[in-house]
């Protein structure tokens, strides 16, 4: 049952990613893939938050697993981010490629800390 819910949550996360990325793309026509960056950083905040709540026993491990590994795991993506970095390198936008790769990573880790800190505050 847990696995089934995890799978459905993963599918829901992927669907949300597809729609949000599309909406961001339609609005900001930039070379930098802002949609994927926004998704990965926001997903990192949320997983930090869920992890923090789990550590405080505000969420059962099962719910944390379904939300974290399922929903947010399906929502955020590493493969697309990597391919987008390569595409930027290919089009000779090396600076943007570095910003995309390093910037997302730094922002993602800071976002995780922020989410976990927020859970502690509540």
């Amino acid at each position, binding site marked *: 049952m847990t696995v089934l819910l*995890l799978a459905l949550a993963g599918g829901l996360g*992927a669907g949300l990613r597809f*729609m949000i990325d599309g*909406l961001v793309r339609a609005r900001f026509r930039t070379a930098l893939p802002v949609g994927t960056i926004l998704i990965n950083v926001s997903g990192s905040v949320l997983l930090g938050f869920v992890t923090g709540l789990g550590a405080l026993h505000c969420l059962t491990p099962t719910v944390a697993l379904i939300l974290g590994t399922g929903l947010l795991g*399906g929502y955020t993506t590493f493969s*697309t981010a990597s391919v987008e970095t390569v595409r930027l*390198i*290919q089009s000779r936008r090396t600076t943007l490629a570095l910003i995309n790769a390093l910037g997302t*990573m730094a922002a993602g880790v800071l976002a*995780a800390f922020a989410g976990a800190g927020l859970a502690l505050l509540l």
Partner: protein
Amino acid sequence: MEQGKPSPADPGPDREHLPREIDVALTVPPQRPIHLHPGYVLLVMAGGCFGASARYGLELLLPAPYGWPVPTLIINVFGAFLLGVLLEGLVRRGPDTGRRRFLRLLVGTGFMGAFTTYSSLSVDAMHLFDAGRGLVAFLYLGASLLLGTGAAFVGIWAAARQYRQPPGHDVDPLGLSRGQQ
């Protein structure tokens, strides 16, 4: 141009999650954009269900020695390689329509997108920093970045080699005559 009507695989009883009213602050084009098309969204969701399950299964199977988040690293690097192969292969076969779009959304955006994850990467690194293992955290982040980008690069390169264009069209498929990496 959207012509190919997908026959979305049924991902189960989660049809009610489709938003009914999304306010796009743009002049609405005559055709619904692809990311607001219920059929395509369902297709991505179906792939996502399987991708997330596969990741969960592999994370249970793969070892995590000394608290190193190796499973996530392996999954992410492997997924980046496969997505590179898939997207480059599809691009070289023709425009994003019909069966190609179906595969891109089901296998690429859906499965590979959900199979790999960024949130766990961030949170794993946070845990390592928090436990005073900053060096391991930096190694983990550096390895993810270099191996992930490298894997996507190799995947794209491998697929580009498969689909050679007519002579004179594309001598340097990656546009990297200087040969980085």
